[in-house]
Structure formats: C-alpha cells, structure tokens
C-alpha cells in the first residue's frame, strides 16, 4: 500500500527561480534563504519518496478567468512549464503518474470534491520552484508528480476548512492505493505577503511564526478563519496559506517537524520552509 512519508512547505516566488538559474546560493541576500534547504534534501535522500503530490496555485499560466477552477488535478504522463510573461527559462519536464492520479480523482470525487481533471497541464512557478528547491536533480532521479491546483486568483477562494478537508480526503485516498509508493505532499506558497494595493509590502512576522508552529501540532486552529481573515493577517497573497492547510490535512499520522527555516524578506515575501515527517 502507498504510504505518506511527510509534508513539505516552501515559498515559491518567481525570484527564487531566477536566483536558482543564476546560482546565487552564496549571495548575501539569498544565502539565509537557500541555507534552509540542504537538511531537507538530506532527509529526502534518506526517505526517497517515489511521488510528490504538489499542492500549489496557478498564477495565470494554465488557467485563465474563462475557466477558473477551485480545485484542479493533473492526470497527465508529464508536465511542462512555459513562459509566464517574463521569459522564465523552460526546464526539463516533470514525470506524471496518471494511474495514481486517477485513483486519487476517483476517491476525491467520491468524497464530494468537485475537481477539474487535467489530462494535459502546464505547471507554473508555484510548482516548478519548489520542485527545483527540493530536488535539484529531479530530472535524473525521475521522481513522479501529481499537481493539485487551488484557486487563489479569483475570489471567492475555497475556505481554509474546505482546503484542509480536501487534504484529509487526499490522505485517505493515497493510503488506499494498492501499490507500494512512498508519497510526499508539498504545500507551496506563503507566508505573509501582499503584492497589490497601497498595502503592498505588508508582512506579518507574528502571524507567520504562529503559522509555522500551529501547522505542525494544531492545524485545526485555522479552520474557522475566513479567507478575509487570512488576507487581513497574512496579506492578499498570504492567502496562499490555504495550500499549506491542504497539505497538512493529508498527513494522517503522527507529525514531527524535522527542519524549519523562516526568513524575511525574499522579494516581497516572508518565506517559510518546513519538513514534516509523518509516522504511521
């Protein structure tokens, strides 16, 4: 049977992709950010997950307002990135696992999650940056992926509780898969940031610290928050925290934080890195 080995969170902003492309790992601005990742990579080297379910938000590459999904899931044999408008480099494609995707879809729809199924799908920086951060050699090791997209573009967004429940259903679905897969769940994006309006540049360290803590041991703390509450506390784009909640919902067992790193600022964002181990 498939087993959920853990969950990872990381910011996914495009500037990170640029910094990776330019190998700015030792640059004084970037060093405190990049230094968080090697211990997580060591953990991944040890655990060797076969599949990553990547929960992220599309920022206007694969989806537009003519067909804006609340929840969308990939079921393709591979996923490619593409130009997002600022000439981001095209990188090696990511392997899919369509049979596993369909197993998840069957179970999530059975649990009344109204998914959009995507048998072809472009993945944007919300997906590629975390994959590159955790598996710089993803193309060589051939880790498989399932992209799961949550709407953060067009209000109304799904509530924190809905996203957490999606995660719970996802976790149950994964653990009912008959193959012996080791699965890791990524919740990408966050933490507090706001790009638009007179409030641009808003960051809330106190709230973020609380998120980093409670997401480990007390994720239900957030379930009565509305999206508006999240925007007040974490900024307009800080609402991406719902992606973390979906990830956390999928961790079915005893959860331990193996590594964490919090750094302000990367670009306009407070960046949060967490490596959560999930024990049966």
């Amino acid at each position, binding site marked *: 049977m498939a087993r959920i080995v853990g969950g990872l969170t990381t910011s996914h902003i495009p500037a990170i992709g640029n910094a990776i492309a330019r190998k700015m790992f030792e640059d004084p601005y970037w060093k405190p950010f990049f230094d968080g990742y090697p211990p997580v990579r060591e953990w991944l080297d040890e655990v060797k997950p076969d599949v990553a379910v990547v929960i992220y938000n599309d920022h206007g590459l694969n989806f537009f307002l003519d067909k804006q999904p609340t929840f969308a899931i990939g079921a393709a044999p591979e996923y490619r990135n593409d130009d997002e408008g600022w000439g981001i480099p095209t990188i090696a494609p990511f392997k899919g696992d369509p049979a596993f995707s369909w197993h998840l879809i069957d179970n999530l729809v059975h649990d009344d999650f109204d998914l959009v199924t995507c048998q072809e799908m472009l993945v944007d920086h919300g997906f590629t940056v975390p994959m590159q951060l955790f598996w710089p050699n993803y193309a060589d090791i051939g880790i498989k992926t399932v992209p799961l997209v949550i709407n953060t573009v*067009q209000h109304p967004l799904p509530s924190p509780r809905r996203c957490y429940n999606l995660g719970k259903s996802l976790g149950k679905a994964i653990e009912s898969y008959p193959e012996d897969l080791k699965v890791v769940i990524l919740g990408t994006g966050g933490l507090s940031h706001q790009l638009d309006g007179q409030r641009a540049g808003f960051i809330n360290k106190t709230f973020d610290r609380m998120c980093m803590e409670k997401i480990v041991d007390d994720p239900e703390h957030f379930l009565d928050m509305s999206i508006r509450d999240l925007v007040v506390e974490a900024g307009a784009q800080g609402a991406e925290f719902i992606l973390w909640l979906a990830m956390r919902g999928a961790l079915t067992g005893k959860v331990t934080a193996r590594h964490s790193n919090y750094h302000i600022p990367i670009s306009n964002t407070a960046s949060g890195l967490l490596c959560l181990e999930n024990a049966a």
Partner: protein
Amino acid sequence: MTHNKEPIPGTVMFDGTQAMKGYALNKMCYSFNNKQNREEFLADEEAYMDKYGLNDEQKQAVRDKVVLDLIAAGGNIYYLAKFAGMYGLNVQDVGAQQTGMSVEDFKEKLRRAGE
C-alpha cells in the same frame, strides 16, 4: 447569507465585481504569456488594446503604467505582473510605485519587517 465584505484598507479583493470590470484588461495581460503577443503589443499598443476591447479607463491606465489605476480598472495583480514584466519591472518596483516610495525605501521596509 451574509459574508463579511468589509473593505481591508489598501487592499482590493479580486472578486466578482472586480472581475466583471476587468475582464478585457486581464485577458489582454494573460495574452502576454506569449512572446509574439508581447511584441505585437509593444509594436502598437493602441491597436492591441482595441483588439482586446479595453475601455478608456483601462487604456489610460495602461498608457500611464500606474498600477493602482490598473487595479481600480479591474486588473488582477497576477495578470498585471505579466504586463509589468514586459518593462522589466519586478514586484518591488510595483510595490514601490503603489506605496509612493522609492524602490530602495520599499526594500528597506521589507527588510525591517524581519527584525
């Protein structure tokens, strides 16, 4: 049913009301994912805006490259980022412009948030 729609200062929620206003503008900006489209726009901005049916308010905001005006005209920041990107403006430049600060001061403000 009552949802709390009380405004958050300095923040425009991109909801249905904004979406209805901004569709043409956002559709144009979404098209900038494509290099050929970016070139077509840069070669003749006015013709490109007409092609996407922008209204006068949107056209003026595009000409002026004033982000707050683009948002007021229904623009969504994720699509606007593609527009800004064409001019080499990143999110710090955009943040500085919206808050009326220099880019240096805006960056300093971000840095201070970490203290």
